C-alpha cells in the first residue's frame, strides 16, 4: 500500500464539495482510501485513525490523504484531485471587476447594483459552518433581507438576537438548522418540487414540512409558501419569534387561503403564543407529541377544510418472501434509523417501543454533512443490524442525494438477506428530480415495504414487531 499525505496551507473548499471530490477519488481503480477535507480536528483524527501520518495542521489547511495499491494509482489520484480542485478554482476566480463577493453584506450590495429595477436580492441562504453563520445572517438582516440559516450548531443567544433584529427590520429569520423553505416557487435547502396552491406552511421542522407538503402534493393540493423557522423556534427560549412573524405574513398574503403550522413538540408557552394570534386565515396545527395529530392526520384535516378528498397514500408492500411478509417472520427489536428529526420523533411516538436514532441531529453532523447528503453513517448503522425490524426515512427533493436508492437499495437487500424486515418512509413528490416512483420501485425490489406516509410506515413497523410478539 502506498500513502500520500499532503497539507495545503490556506486552501479552502466547503465540506460537501470536498466530500464529492473524496468520493470520486475513492472510486478510482486501486485507491482504497481518499480523504480530501479541511484539516479540522475531526478530519485529522479520521485520517490518523485510518493510519495516515498527518503532520501538524491548522483548521485553515486542506488535508489530502490517499492510499492506493501502487505508486501509479496514487499519482493518478493526485492528478485527478488537482484537476477537480483547479476546475473549482477556475469557477470561483475572475479577474478585475467581476470578482465574486466575499461576504453576504457585499453580495447584497452587488445584487442591488447589478439588477437595476429588479430591487436586488430577496433572501439569503446561509450554510457556512455554524460558528460563522451568525456573521452572514447578521449581514443579511442588516441589508434588509430575510435569511434562511441552513447551518446548525448556532448558539441560541445568536438566534434570539437575529430574530429580534429581523423583527425590527421587517424581515424573517428562518433557522438556524432550517432545512427547507419554498418561497415564491423557489425551493431552498432540501425542498420538494411542489405545485403552487392555497396552503401556506410554517414549519419548525424541516422534514416534517417536507412530509406534509409532499402529501398535499400527492393529494393534488399546492402550496403558496413554505416558511421554515428552525427547529428551536417554538422552544421556551426562542418563544416562537419567527413562527409568529411567519404566521402573520402568510395571514397577510393574498395567495394563502389556509395555514398549516408544523412543529416538533413545542414549549407550552410558545404553542399558546402562536395559537393566540387572532389570524384571519384558518390555521391547522400539527404540533407533534403524544396525543397530538400525526403529520398525515394534519394533512388530512387540511384536505377536509379545503373540501378535498383524502386519497389512499401510495405504498408498496414488501415483496413476497421478504422478512416481515407472511411465512417469513422476523425476530428482534425495532430500530429506527432516521435522517429527519421530526419524522424520527413522529415514528417513535407511533411505534411506542424500539430504539430510534436521528442522524440529522447536531451530535452527528458536527464536522460532516447532513445524512440526506452523506448517507455513510446511516448505512453503517443499517449494516450493523442483525435482526428485527428497521424503519428508516428517505427524503427526496432538491438538495438531497440525487439517487439515494443507489447506495441504500443494496444495503436493504443485505439486511433482508440477514432476515431483517425493512420499512421505508419515502418522502417526496412526482415532480422531484430523483423520481418518487423510480426510488420506491428500487427500494421495494430490494425487499423493503415502502410508504409515502411516515405515520403509516411507523404503524406498519409497529405491527410487524407486535405480530411477532403475538405469534
Amino acid at each position, binding site marked *: 500500500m502506498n500513502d500520500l499525505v499532503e497539507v495545503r496551507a490556506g486552501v*479552502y473548499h*466547503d*465540506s*460537501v*464539495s470536498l466530500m464529492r471530490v473524496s468520493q470520486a477519488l475513492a472510486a478510482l481503480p486501486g485507491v482504497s482510501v481518499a480523504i480530501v477535507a479541511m484539516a479540522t480536528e475531526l478530519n485529522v483524527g479520521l485520517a490518523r485513525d485510518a493510519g495516515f501520518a498527518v503532520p501538524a495542521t*491548522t*483548521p*485553515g489547511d486542506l488535508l489530502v490523504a490517499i492510499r492506493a495499491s501502487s505508486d501509479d494509482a496514487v499519482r493518478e489520484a493526485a492528478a485527478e484531485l488537482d484537476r477537480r480542485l483547479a476546475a473549482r478554482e477556475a469557477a470561483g476566480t475572475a*479577474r*478585475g*471587476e467581476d*470578482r*465574486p*463577493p*466575499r*461576504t*453576504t*453584506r*457585499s*453580495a*447584497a*450590495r*452587488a*445584487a442591488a447594483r*447589478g*439588477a437595476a429595477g*429588479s*430591487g436586488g*436580492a*430577496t*433572501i439569503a*441562504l446561509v*450554510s*457556512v459552518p455554524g*460558528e460563522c453563520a451568525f*456573521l*452572514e445572517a*447578521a449581514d*443579511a438582516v442588516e441589508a434588509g433581507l430575510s435569511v434562511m440559516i*441552513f447551518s446548525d450548531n448556532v448558539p441560541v443567544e*445568536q438566534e434570539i*438576537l437575529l430574530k429580534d433584529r429581523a423583527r*425590527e*427590520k*421587517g424581515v*424573517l429569520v428562518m433557522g438556524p438548522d432550517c432545512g427547507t423553505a419554498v*418561497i*415564491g416557487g*423557489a*425551493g*431552498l435547502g432540501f*425542498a420538494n418540487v411542489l405545485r403552487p396552491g392555497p396552503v401556506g406552511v410554517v414549519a419548525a421542522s424541516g422534514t416534517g414540512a417536507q412530509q406534509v407538503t409532499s402529501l398535499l402534493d400527492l393529494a393534488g393540493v399546492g402550496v403558496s409558501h413554505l416558511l421554515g423557522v428552525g427547529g428551536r423556534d417554538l422552544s421556551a427560549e426562542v418563544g416562537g419569534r419567527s413562527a409568529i*412573524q411567519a404566521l402573520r405574513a*402568510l*395571514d*397577510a*398574503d393574498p395567495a394563502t387561503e389556509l395555514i398549516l403550522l408544523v412543529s416538533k413538540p413545542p414549549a407550552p408557552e410558545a404553542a399558546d403564543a402562536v395559537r393566540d394570534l387572532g389570524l384571519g386565515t384558518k390555521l391547522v396545527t400539527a404540533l407533534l407529541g403524544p396525543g397530538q395529530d400525526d403529520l398525515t392526520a394534519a394533512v388530512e384535516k387540511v384536505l377536509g377544510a379545503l373540501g378535498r378528498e383524502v386519497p389512499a397514500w401510495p405504498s408498496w408492500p414488501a415483496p413476497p418472501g421478504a422478512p416481515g411478509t407472511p411465512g417469513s417472520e422476523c425476530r428482534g427489536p425495532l430500530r429506527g434509523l432516521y435522517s429527519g428529526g421530526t419524522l424520527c420523533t413522529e415514528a417513535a411516538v407511533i411505534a411506542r417501543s424500539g430504539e430510534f436514532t436521528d442522524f440529522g441531529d447536531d451530535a452527528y453532523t458536527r464536522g460532516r*454533512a447532513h445524512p440526506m447528503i452523506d448517507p455513510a453513517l446511516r448505512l453503517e448503522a443499517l449494516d450493523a443490524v442483525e435482526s428485527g425490524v428497521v424503519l428508516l426515512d428517505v427524503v427526496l427533493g*432538491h438538495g438531497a442525494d440525487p439517487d439515494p436508492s443507489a447506495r441504500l437499495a443494496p444495503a436493504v437487500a443485505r439486511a433482508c438477506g440477514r432476515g431483517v424486515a425493512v420499512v421505508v418512509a419515502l418522502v417526496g413528490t412526482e415532480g422531484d*428530480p430523483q423520481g418518487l416512483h423510480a426510488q420506491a420501485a428500487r427500494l421495494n425490489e430490494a425487499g423493503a415495504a415502502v410508504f409515502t406516509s411516515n405515520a403509516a410506515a411507523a404503524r406498519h413497523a409497529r405491527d410487524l414487531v407486535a405480530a411477532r410478539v403475538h405469534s
Partner: protein
Amino acid sequence: MSAIRTDPEGRAMNPTTLSMLSREPHVITAGTALLGEALDQQAVARTDVDWRPPVPGTAAALAAALADPRRERANATAVGRMVSARPRLVGVRPAREVLGLEPGTFLHAGPPISWERASGPMRGALIGAMLFEGLASSPEDAEERLAAGSGITLDSCHHHRTVGPMAGVVSPSMWMLEVADAEHGGAAYCSLNEGLGKVLRYGAYGPEVVERLRWMGDVLGPALQAALALSGPLDLRALIAQALQMGDELHNRNRAATSLMVRELAPAVVEAAPGHAAEVLRFINGNDHFFLNAGMAAAKVSADAARDVPGSSLVVAMARNGTDFGIQVSGLGDRWFTGPAEVPDGLYLGAYGPGDANPDIGDSTITETTGLGGFAMAAAPAIVRFVGGDVADAVAATTSMYEITLAEHPAYQIPGLGFRGTPVGIDVTLVARTGTLPVVNTGIAGRVAGTGQVGAGLVSPPMEAFTAALAALTDA
C-alpha cells in the same frame, strides 16, 4: 389583513408583510455549493458568496462584535462623517504657532516610538530636524543628544491632529499646511513637501536638506500663506475629486492634483509675493508630489471627524514609523494596535534593490484610510506597474477593497468603474472575516539614514494589528 398591528402594550409594530413573498426570488447563497446548485437547477436568480473562513482564531470575537447593538448605527455615523467632511486649505503657518511645539519637541510618523527602536530613515530625519532647529552642531552631536534624550520630546504626529509623509518629522520651525473641515469644524496639519531625492522625510540630513528647509520657511511658506490670504481657502474635496478623474490615486500619483493646485494658486502667488513668485512656482512645479501633503491633511481631517463613535469598528488611522505599523479605531479612542512594519514590494530606483529598503514608514496611509491611494488604484492606470502590471490588476485592487469598507465615497469617483465611489471606511470586522488586508501604495525609504528614496510599491499591513483591534472591541 391589516398592514400595521400593535403589540400587547399598544406600541406600533412593523408591517407584517414580507417583501420576499411577493417578489421574484433572488437568492444570495453563502456556504455549501450543493445548495446553490440546487437553485441553479430551478433557474432561480442567485448571487453567490465566495465564502471562506475568517482569520483563524477570530470567530468568537467577530460574533461578539457583530452582536454589539451599537455597531450598525455607530459605523453609519462614523463613516458618514468621514465621507461628508469638506476639507479646505486655509493657511500655511509655522508648527510652533499652529501646534504650539516647543524647542526640542519633534513629531514623527506612525505610532509612538523611542530613539532606541527607531529605524535608519527615522533617525536620519530626527538628526536633520535637530540641525535645522540649531539644536546640534553636527550630525554626530545630534545623534548623541537624541540618544541621551535630555530636553528632547518625541511624539506621534497623529496625537497632534497632524500627519507627515515617510519619517514625518515635524519641528517647531517647519511651516505647516492648515486644513479645516467646513462640515464638522475640525482642523488638521501636514508639513510642506520638499520634493524628491535627498530629503528629510526619507532620512537625509545633509547641508542641502537643511538649506532647503530654511528656504521653505523663509520663502515658500510665507508666499503660500500670503497667496491663500488673497485667494481665500482652497476647496480640497473638489480638487481631489477632479484629480481622481484625471488619473491620480492621490498617494503614489499626485501629478494631476499638483497641476490643479498650481493653476488655482499661481495668480495669487504672483500678486501676493511678486519677488518670489517664479522660484515658488518653479519649486512646486518641479515636484509631482507637492499636493500629497495637502491631500494627507485633507484625509486626516476627514478621518478625525469619524473618531470616537462608541461601538464603531471603523479604522480612523493607519500609520507606520518605520518599525511598527499601527492602526486606530473609532470606537477605541486613541489606542494603537500595532504589528511589525513590512518591507514594501515594489520597483526600485537606479541600482537600489530590496536589500536597501527600510520597512514601511509614514503617515501617508491616511490616504488609504479615507479611500484614496491603493483603494483608488483603478483611477490611476498610469502607475499600474506598482500593483503587478496591468489595468486589470489595478481594477482588482480597488474592487477587493469594497469587501472591507463600509461605504462608497459620494464625491470621490472612479471613471473606469462607471463613476462608482471609491471604497472608503475600513471595518476591522470585515478585514478579519475576509482575510483581506488594505492595499497600500507607498514610497520606499532607504534603510540607511541619509540615503533618501530608493523605490515605490505596495505593502501589506500586519493582520495582527486588525485582529488585536477586533479583540479590543469586545471589551469596549
